[in-house]
């Protein structure tokens, strides 16, 4: 008792001392200038009054940051599979049919196209390069697709192609960052982080945002394309790996068996429970729950990441082989994860940078081979989602950071050994499917040689806005307060592409 009394006494003493320090600069400012200023400003901008905004806008519960949350309005999509071809495939050999360009094949590029433009590698006057693939119309919708995608051609009526996507970055890393985080510089949260922040995750035994990479390398921009930027780091993408632990530290140390692990978690939680009885801090209860969840994750994650148990017809369909690190395996995993309630699955496949400096990088050789790797699994994904009733509420996006030039690359002004194209930011193609997207549509048009956009131009922000819209968010109102101002994924632009929404 005396101890407590002493405490209180001292607290009172400290408080008294504080009252003495009443008239300081801050106080004065607050009471005079600030008061007037705030009064005037407050009445002008009712939405910006100081007390109601501030960090209070960041809605998440730190003790359970991944708790599921409702969107702003009922969304068509509940989860997203984003397939990114890192390196940028050529739209002119896949989706963008340009018969005029083949007539110009081998001719010098007209100077009007080069004036005031910068390219990553093209120097001087390059030659035009005709399409290196044959195109045909497919499906009821009659969309044009090249022979490089024979499987995808069979499901064109389920996808919506955007043929006039633009960006303002012509180097891989910044362009990837722009596509995924809304800025070409490091430091903003990625789309998946925004979405897990906004919606949380329904299956508490799995992470909400999973990243899968293939093609031998991580994307150029590194883990920043699935980083959480200024959002709490719990919203960053969890990279699931095909070799080693599927999720870092998911495996018990060597020699530890499940019983002992269970016993130790029980012991930890028993002690934590006692700790809670003493301290009553709800954070402790949350920690107990996290340890239980960790134990369950140790079972559920390897289970979902294991494709061995999939039936043969599925392996046949996707072209998957258990045990190898392949794009097809990642695609199948994406389906499994979404089926189990993972919110955002991000796939990166590296190796699409067709400059033509080697056979593997030629638009008529390497690109074709890459297409053969991805075409079948992607098509299988769409059909499999469809038959499982998942395509209704799963938004699939296929795309890249930019496109490729209608000109043949001439690095340092010299002819390249193989047919290749340079980075092209002004026009490229992407497609979306499911999650309320109108299948069999094509939106946007480029000029006769596919150099620049003519109609239906969209950029990364428009695509991000559309994705958020399908999930039930108004991209202009979905914000996070950081460094004194609210931030948006789409920054200050972005328009939902209603033309491809059913």
């Amino acid at each position, binding site marked *: 008792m005396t101890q407590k009394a002493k*405490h209180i006494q*001292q*607290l009172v003493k400290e408080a008294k001392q*504080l*009252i003495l*320090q009443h008239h*300081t600069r*801050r*106080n004065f400012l607050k009471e005079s200038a600030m008061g007037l200023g705030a009064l005037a*400003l407050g009445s002008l901008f009712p939405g*910006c009054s*100081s007390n109601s*905004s*501030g*960090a*209070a806008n960041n809605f998440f519960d*730190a003790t359970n*940051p991944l708790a599921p949350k409702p969107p702003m309005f009922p969304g068509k999509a509940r989860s997203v599979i984003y397939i990114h071809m890192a390196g940028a495939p050529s739209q002119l050999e896949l989706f963008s049919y340009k018969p005029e360009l083949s007539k110009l094949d081998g001719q010098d590029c007209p100077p009007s196209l080069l004036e005031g433009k910068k390219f990553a590698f093209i120097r001087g006057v390059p030659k035009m390069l005709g399409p290196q693939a044959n195109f045909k119309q497919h499906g009821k919708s009659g969309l044009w697709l090249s022979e490089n995608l024979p499987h995808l051609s069979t499901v064109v009526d389920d996808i919506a192609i955007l043929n006039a996507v633009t960006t303002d970055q012509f180097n891989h890393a910044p362009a990837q960052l722009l596509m995924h985080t809304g800025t070409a510089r*490091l430091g903003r949260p990625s789309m998946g982080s925004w979405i897990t922040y906004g919606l949380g995750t329904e299956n508490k035994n799995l*992470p909400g945002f999973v990243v899968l990479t293939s093609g031998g*390398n*991580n994307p150029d921009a*590194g*883990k*920043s394309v699935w980083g*959480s930027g*200024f959002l*709490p*780091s*719990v919203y*960053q993408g*969890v990279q699931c790996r095909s*070799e*080693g632990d599927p*999720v*870092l*530290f998911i495996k018990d*140390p060597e*020699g*530890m068996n499940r*019983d*002992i692990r269970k*016993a130790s*978690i029980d*012991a*930890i939680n*028993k*002690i*934590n429970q*006692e700790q809670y009885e003493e*301290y*009553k*801090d*709800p954070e*402790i209860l949350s*920690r107990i729950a*996290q*340890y239980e969840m*960790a134990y369950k994750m140790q079972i559920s994650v390897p289970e979902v990441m294991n494709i061995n148990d999939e039936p043969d017809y599925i392996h046949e369909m996707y072209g998957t082989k258990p045990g190898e690190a392949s794009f097809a395996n990642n695609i199948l995993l994406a389906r499994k994860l979404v089926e189990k309630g993972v919110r955002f699955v991000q796939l990166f496949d*590296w190796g699409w940078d067709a400059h033509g400096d080697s056979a593997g990088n030629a638009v008529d050789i390497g690109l074709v081979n890459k297409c053969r790797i991805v075409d079948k699994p992607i098509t299988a994904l769409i059909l499999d989602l469809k038959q499982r009733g998942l395509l209704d509420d799963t938004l699939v996006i296929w795309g890249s950071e930019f496109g490729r030039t209608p000109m043949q690359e001439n690095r340092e002004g010299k002819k390249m050994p193989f047919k290749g194209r340079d980075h092209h930011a002004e026009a490229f193609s992407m497609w979306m499917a499911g999650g309320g997207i109108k299948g069999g549509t094509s939106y946007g048009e480029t000029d006769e040689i596919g150099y620049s956009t003519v109609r239906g131009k969209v950029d990364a922000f428009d695509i991000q806005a559309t994705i958020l819209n399908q999930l039930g968010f108004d991209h202009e109102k979905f914000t996070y307060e950081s460094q004194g101002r609210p931030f948006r994924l789409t920054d200050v632009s972005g328009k939902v592409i209603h033309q491809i929404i059913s």
Partner: protein
Amino acid sequence: MVNRLWEQLFGFGLVETLEDFGTQGIAPTHKELLDHLSWQFMNDFDWSLKKLLKEMVMSATYRQDSKTNDELIRKDPENKLYARGPRIRLSAEQLRDQALVVSNLISKKMYGKSVMPYQPDGIWRSPYNGDKWMMSKGEDQNRRALYTYWKRTAPYPSMLTFDGGAREVCVTQRIRTNTPLQALTTLNDSTYFVMAQSFAFQMQLLEFNDVKKQIQKGYESMLFKPISDNRLNALVELYSKSMITFAKDKKAAHEIVGEGRTATPETAALVVVANAMLNLDEWVNKN
């Protein structure tokens, strides 16, 4: 400055938005206190951080017990009124350093280049260069978190899990989260497991025979307070359960204890206990 130090000690600043004292930030909870400390910092302490820090940690507010009760939680869930002591989770770096110290592995070496402690394979996989994470040798493995090599496109994973900044952008304040991935890190990351092994040996050194005493001493060395009976019982129970398993499975016991030590079932069981102890809430939180 005062606000930032306060945040370091109490978990959140007197002005919660550290980066913004303006109209868009949150108003200070104890404006007068902030003013008073700032004035002291400038005049009485002559800008000495050390003195300011001392003033704060010696205050009755800081030295309060962080025990609380339902009524306090209802009235003031975030402890903005400081009726109890702060209770916050340690930062990623603090956690590593603290575990290194208690397991007696810490390297006191200062200055010099960053080092590369254990990290699982395949974190770095950048295109266009073949840089690899080369594990540092010997003592460098166990230097403080401060010295860990940091690559922005592929940061050190276990620190990131505990809300370490990715250093892509200036962060004034880390948000403390609580996730199962953190549990997995401190349970299974081999860095932390090696520390558990070493901590177990440490406990054995302190007290040769009696397991109970070993755990008691270990607990005291961790938290500077005697262990309660319930806690002790829980840990002893874990010890005996593990003992049964490891007595039967010599190979597992060997793996648990690690290379270069005699793998008795007793030691293995104590490693499991140490691993659990390094995961206790009172260990990862500051009370």
